[in-house]
Structures are given as C-alpha cells and as structure tokens.
C-alpha cells in the first residue's frame, strides 16, 4: 500500500497535542519538535496548561495543550491554529477544537469518548462530532487505549503503567502523518529513560504501533505530508525553552565576568523553571537559595552582590510587587542585581499560567521615589539567552539593578537554539575600585564619563565603607538630607541610566517606504513579525520596529517613530509601551492595538486590525 501514498510538501504545519494534565502531552510535543528540528525544520512550541495542579481526570478544566509549529522556512510563532489536533479525551476535544483550523485533521482516542467521558466534558448526546459540527471524514478515530494495552500485553507492565504510553501512540501517528524519522524519537527516549530501559522499550514499541496504525489505515486519513527545510543555517543546535535560555544567559554572564552566580528566588509560576534549572548546576558553582519569600529572594541577591557575586532574583509580576522595596535599595546603593520578571496575567494572582505584557509600567515606575532602572525585554525563547547575558553585563558594568522581562509565552515556548560560543560574547568588566584610590576613595565617587560609581567588595583592605537606603552625600558618602545634595544625587542616578548605550532600534520590512510601522516589545516579536510578513505578502508596505531595550530607549527611537505616517503600537496590555513612548518622544500619537487575553496574539487578528489602520 505504501507505494500508493501521495507525499505532499507543506511549507509549515502546526500540531496541537491535548489531553489531561497527566497525559504526557508536553513530552509527546517535545519529541515531535526535536525530531523535526533534527532534520533542520524551524520550530516554535507553546505549552498551554491549566492553573489547577491536577484537575479531576477527564474534566474540562484539566485539559492541557502543547502546540508545535514546524516550518520549512523560519517560523516565528507556535501558529495561530493547528493543522492537526490530537485530543486524548472528550474534554480535550471540547476545549481545544477552537484552536484547530477548519480543515484540520483530528486524532481522537475513542476509548476516552465513552458515556462517562462525554458527560464529564458536558456533551449532551453520544454524537459528539455532530454536536461540535466536525466532519467525521477529518477525524482519525482510533481506540488508542485498547491498542496500547494490546501492544504491551506481553510486557509484564501493569495497566496504569501501560496507559502512560498512550501519548506515544498519538505521537507515532503524528510522525506517520508527517513522515518523520522514528529513529530520532527512539534515541530521544533511550536517553530520557536511560535508567529505565523497560520504560524506553515500551514507549518505543507504542510509537511504532501508532506509526504502523497510521500507515495501515492511511486510506481513511489525510495523506502523508512532508516538511522540507529551505534555509538551513549550519551549526549545532539544541531545543531550548525561554526559561532555560534565561538561566543559561545568567550562567554565561557570571562565567564571563569571573563572578559567582547567586540566585535568590521563591517558587512562582511561570518563573520557577529558572530556579529549577540553576539549582542543577552546582558543578558550575551556581548557588541558589529558595528563600522564605519574594522579598528575601531579592534582598539576598542584593546581599550577595554587595559581597561580590552576581546577584539575580527571578519571579513573576506578583513577586515584583514584593521585591520592589529591595530593588529600590539597589537603586540608591548603586549595586548590581538582575531581576527577572516572567510576566503572567494580572492583576493580583490573575492568570498564573497565562501570558501578558502588563508589568511594563510596574517595571519602569513601580517604586517609591525617583527610581530609574534599566528594563530589557526578551523577544523569543532563544533571545532570552542574549537578553539575560546583556542584562547581567549592564547591571555589573553600570552598578545598577536591571529588570529583565520575559513572559509566560516565551518562557515556556521553545525553539531550536544554535549553541552560542561564549568567546564571541562581549567582555564584562565591573568597575572595581582601582587600588591607587585607597585613602581618597568614597562610595559615590564616579567615573566621570559614565557616571558609574566604583565597586569595593568586602575583603579589600582600606576600602571599608557603608552603603544604605538613606540618601548619601555625593562627596563623603555620609547620610545627608541636604536639599541640594539630594537634588544632585537624584539627577546623577537618572543620568547614569540615561547614559547607558544600547543598540539602535532595527526596522524590519519596508523600512524606507512603509505606510504603517508596527511597534511592539518583548515576547510579541514572533506574532508581529508574522503579521508583517503576511501583510507584505499581500502587497502592503509595512515595517516592524520591535523594542528589546525599553529603558533607556535606543538613541534612534524618536527618529524611527517619527519617520512613518502611521504607527501602531501593539501590545498585550492596555497601552503601556505606547504611554512610555509618548512620555519620551514628543508629538508621538500612535494607533494602538491592545489585547489582554492571557493568550499569544493571533496573527490573523493582527493582520485584520493593521489592514483596518492602513485603510483609514
């Protein structure tokens, strides 16, 4: 039968694996993306998991999804809607179908669509496809549970263990649909379960069974589809999530600076993986302290930096609220720390597992007093590495706390990461106080050009000094309430930040003659880029300027924003970047696109909204 198969070439495809939180959808998705990346496809992934720890099995609130987008050319997002939806149970189909394209292939485990399952998923009848208006021809309805049990009948495993392999059956089926090389998946599993070869073997057997099932029944499903790779960048790659890339950036920066890395942190979704990752790497001398609260996370990082380490603290928006006090102390003491804010939906506890960009003004202004602080925003999972590295470099070289902003979307999403060569990264040179200043040095003596004060680390004889939260005299370093001195110090702290050099803002697309400039920051880069590509493919003149450096702004910001007739600032908040830009750029009156759904932008919606602006 195989010889009759038609292999279609596709430019890109998105697959969404969905099921109960415990169904292993993320693992299936990860393997699929790794298998695809290994053959050079561009990949982008996005997990969408519920806030509940483990909602009741089969319930609507317990569904978790993992979307993988693979492409022959660069893919910038996990895809708006999927081409293949895997629904491991009735609740998954009910909640995830809205993410499927109209002509998507749906794979379901019919064993999980029994009366009780349908009831839990609030279906009214047994005709669940009819209720959802799904064309049965597009559905691969397969008794996955039973087939997995049959497949593993001789394995000696108990039923519970067998059922843990259901995800691999679905994966095998998807691999068949896209003509993937199973050997790569097998190797992945052999390595993952190196200590449990039995588990690896069972999973491998089930993947093969899923693949064979697809092969043997192909007449009832879509034809095999292949994604070829168009523009390969040669090199060695790994799959990396934004949080892991962030952790790696911190490690790399500490090594480059020759400093011990200290992380003070308190568990918080969606930032905790940074704590997990760094906690593993004791062999690199990384010290992590899981603190008693968010406050101590930041305070201890500041103590660590006072004592001569690279102090970092990681959190999400609610944690920033608590850390702002110690961040402010870092501002007035002029000590380096990096504060990572993996943004999630707010306010308050908000939407812990969902993504937003609603902390920007908090990062810029959420402290008492005049408290200028650099803000850097990472644009993609892999960009988290550079962003984290640069945040550390900026903090250490300018003796200032730096806020590094990512969000749940880039933090949990993954992409192929070309292994960085640390030798090619810029040096990090903290401004240690020169020995010859012994005797004349005072804590707030500054480099005249940069406005940066010198760093005297405890242990150095002759440089004993006190820092603190009270305003200090610029000359002596003693406590001072002198009005002129406070005015001076406030200005000096501001100027120090304003003087930091950041790269110019890049303009992509029709940079010379765009009718519309799209402006965004941080994690929306992929979606805004994809929207621009789509508009340009339709013949529109569109450009994109995406901010990574938010404070200080790139020197060419006003020039770029002033160059185009129409500018739209698109962000996942109520207009925070637009407000900041309007504060910093005279006569800037952009259009605004604001969406706060806790979900990534949808490219089609962006295209629609931008077209409307173009037509105005």
């Amino acid at each position, binding site marked *: 039968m195989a010889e009759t198969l038609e292999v279609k070439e596709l430019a890109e495809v998105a697959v969404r694996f969905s099921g109960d939180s415990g169904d292993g959808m993320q693992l299936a998705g990860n393997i699929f993306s790794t298998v695809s990346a290994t053959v050079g496809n561009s990949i982008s992934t996005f997990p969408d998991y519920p806030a509940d720890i483990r909602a009741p099995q089969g319930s609507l609130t317990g569904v978790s999804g993992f979307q993988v987008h693979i492409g022959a050319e660069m893919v910038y997002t996990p895809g708006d809607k999927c081409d293949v939806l895997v629904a491991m149970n009735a609740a998954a189909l009910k909640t995830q179908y809205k993410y499927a394209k109209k002509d998507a292939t749906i794979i379901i485990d019919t064993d999980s669509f029994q009366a009780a399952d349908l009831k839990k998923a609030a279906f009214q009848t047994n005709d669940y496809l009819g209720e959802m208006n799904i064309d049965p021809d597009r559905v691969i309805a397969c008794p996955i549970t039973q087939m997995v049990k049959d497949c593993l009948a001789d394995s000696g495993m108990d039923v519970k263990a067998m059922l843990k392999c259901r995800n691999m059956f679905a994966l095998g089926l998807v691999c068949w649909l896209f003509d993937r090389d199973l050997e790569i998946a097998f190797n992945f599993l052999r390595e993952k379960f190196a200590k449990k070869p039995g588990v690896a073997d069972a999973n491998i057997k089930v993947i093969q069974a899923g693949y064979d099932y697809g092969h043997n029944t192909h007449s009832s499903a879509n034809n095999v589809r292949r994604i070829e790779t168009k523009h390969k960048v040669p090199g060695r790659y790994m799959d990396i999530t934004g949080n892991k890339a962030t952790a790696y950036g911190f490690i790399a920066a500490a090594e480059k600076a020759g400093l011990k890395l200290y992380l003070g942190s308190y568990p918080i979704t969606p930032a905790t993986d940074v704590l997990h990752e760094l906690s593993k790497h004791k062999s690199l001398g990384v010290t992590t302290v899981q603190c008693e609260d968010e406050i101590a996370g930041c305070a201890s990082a500041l103590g660590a930096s006072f004592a*001569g380490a690279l102090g970092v603290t990681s959190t999400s928006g609610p944690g920033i609220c608590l850390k702002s006090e110690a961040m402010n102390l870092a501002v007035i003491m002029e000590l380096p720390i990096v504060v990572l804010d993996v943004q999630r939906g707010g306010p308050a506890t908000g939407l812990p597992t969902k993504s937003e960009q609603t902390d920007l003004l908090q990062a810029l202004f959420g402290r008492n007093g005049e408290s200028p602080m650099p803000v850097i925003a990472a644009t993609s999972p892999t960009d988290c590495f550079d962003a984290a590295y640069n945040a550390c470099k900026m903090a250490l070289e300018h003796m200032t706390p730096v806020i590094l902003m990512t969000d749940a979307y880039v933090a949990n999403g993954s992409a192929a990461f070309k292994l960085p060569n640390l030798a090619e990264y810029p040096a990090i040179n903290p401004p240690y106080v020169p020995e010859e200043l012994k005797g004349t040095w005072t804590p707030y003596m500054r480099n005249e050009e940069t406005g940066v004060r010198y760093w005297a680390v405890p242990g150095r004889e002759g440089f004993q000094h006190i820092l603190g939260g009270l305003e200090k005299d610029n000359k002596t370093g003693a406590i001072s309430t002198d009005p002129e001195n406070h005015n001076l110090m406030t200005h000096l702290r501001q100027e120090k930040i304003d003087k930091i050099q950041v790269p110019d803002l890049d303009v992509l697309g029709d940079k010379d003659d765009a009718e519309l400039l799209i402006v965004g920051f941080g994690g929306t880069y992929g979606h805004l880029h994809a929207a621009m590509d789509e508009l340009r493919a339709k013949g529109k003149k569109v450009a994109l300027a995406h901010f990574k450096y938010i404070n200080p702004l790139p020197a060419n910001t006003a020039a770029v924003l002033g160059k185009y007739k129409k500018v739209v600032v698109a962000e996942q908040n109520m207009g925070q970047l637009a407000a900041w830009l309007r504060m910093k750029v005279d006569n800037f009156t952009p259009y605004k696109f604001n969406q706060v759904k806790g979900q990534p932008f949808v490219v089609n919606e962006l295209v629609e909204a931008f077209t409307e602006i173009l037509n105005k």
Partner: protein
Amino acid sequence: MAYTAQDFKKGQPRWCPGCGDHFFLASLHKAMAEIGVDPWNIAVISGIGCSSRLPHYMATYGMNTIHGRAAAIATGAKVVNPSLSVWQISGDGDGLAIGGNHFIHANRRNINLNMILLNNRIYGLTKGQYSPTSPRGFVSKSSPYGTVEDPFRPAELCFGARGHFFARAVATDAQGTIDILKAAHQHKGAAVCEILQNCVIFNDGTHESVYSKEGRAKNAIYVQHGKPLIFGENSEYGLVQEGFGLKVVKIGENGITEKDILVHDAHCQDNTLQLKLALMGNGDGFPVALGVIRDVDAPTYDDSVTTQIEEISSKKKYHNFAELLETNDIWEVK
C-alpha cells in the same frame, strides 16, 4: 594583628544621650578588637530603626538597609562570601515584626550570622509605638488604652525556629555583652544575641530590674555552661528542676546543698530546659537569665552549600558553560 576598640570606631553616634545603643556599640567595638578579625573582613548589616544606625559607626564594611530585611540581605552576603564575618543588627520592631519571617528562617537554615537583637520593647525612631515585644496592656501612642495582644519572647521564636544559639546581655553590662558577642562569633551558625536595652525617651526603665549592676546581682542569673545555676547577692539561691518546671531554692534551707542545684548545659541538643531558663522573669519570682543559654553545634547552611557544590562538582563532568551546553541533546544542521 592585635586590634583595639579604636580600630573599629567610626563617626559620632547620633543616638539620644543615655540610649542603650551607645553602651552596646562600645561593647561591640571592644568585642571585635578582642575577636581580632580584620575590619575589612567584617560586614555589619542592619535594617531600619534607631539601633540600625549602628553600621555607620563601624570602621568595617556595612549596610544600613531597609526595614526588616537585614537577615535576608545578610544571608545572601554570607552564602556567597563565607569568609566574611557577618553581623546583623536589628531592633525588636525590625527583627521581630516586619522582619519576623527572615529572623525565623535565618535561624532555621542556620546561616552563620551573628544576629544582634536590640530589644527596648518600643518603636523609638517613629516616636513611641508599642512593639512586638511590648507586654500586654502596654500604653503607648498607638495603644493609649493599653495593648490587647501578647508579646513575642525572642527566645521562643529562636527556639521555635530550631535556633542553635541564644544568648542575652544587658546593654549597660559591658563585660556580659562582650562575653556573649565573643561566644556568638565562636559559634558556627545563626547566633542570636538579645540585648536588653533602654529607650530613655519612650520606654525608660523597661528593663529596670537588671539595668544596674546592683539590680543584676539581685534579679539576674549569669548562666555558664557546666556551672551550677546559682544566683543572688551572696550566691545564696539556685535553680532546681521540679516536675515539668524550674524552681528557685535557697541553698542551705530544707537540706538543699550546692550539689542539688541544676548544672547549666548550653550544649544540650534538647532545648527544653534552656527555653525555661530563657523565659524566666522577675514577675514570676525568677531571675532573668543572662549569658549563653543555648550553644549547640549543627551544620551551617553556608558550609553545607559549599560542601554540596564541591561534592557535585567532583561528580559532574561539566565545569564551565561550554561543557554545560554539551550535556544537552544536540543535533547538527549541515
């Protein structure tokens, strides 16, 4: 190198005349001279409050940070730089109210910090509100009709957090203070020193019964490890165990001899009797315990962190960033 108190002095303290902070600072200078750690290897880290001004008057490295956070900041400093001698200075409000969480967790983790708690049972810098150590019924500006809450007793918090060192001195008692500061330095791990001190403006006389030498002779007991718990102007009283509690007895009465008196064991792992000593008060007919009440060896957090890093380093095969990258699943695109 031999140091004198002068080597640790800096600036002119701004506390009110007669404030207990002056006495404590002088003792700290002397204790540091006797301890002999170089001033550049010492960090004195305080929070906010009258007593938290103290680092400004030390010729060491120091930080006068934010309210309540001194223990957390000191934790970070000590963990990354274990060779620093770190002294954390807090008042009763700073350490036990706004900083209560950090206080208990520093004790629980057993960070090698010298944690000084200057207890005057009042908020002085904000001009006279009751503190978490003010007694029930205490009248202050924020409790004009008396407080309706019970105070913390610092030893209970320390012991409840599994603290391994607790000592107490009266600020006006220089030798007693120097002795416990030296013991705190000697102790590896979180070492809480409660300093009973006066606020001459807002809570004068709060520790009146033990503030003078004569008072202490009558109303305090200096506990010493391995020595019988004897006190009184003429060493005529002693402590014995009775039932679940302690009891004051007079030596020579009812057949009691010195041999019957409880011998202090600061090194005893079980803190039951140590806590009883720490909680004794004049109001209950007991002397106030001064000196090192508990001093038990236990693994310190900072040592354990260092040890773990060394152990893992010897086992793992990657020791720099480039090697770390290689631990991942890598593929090559040609």
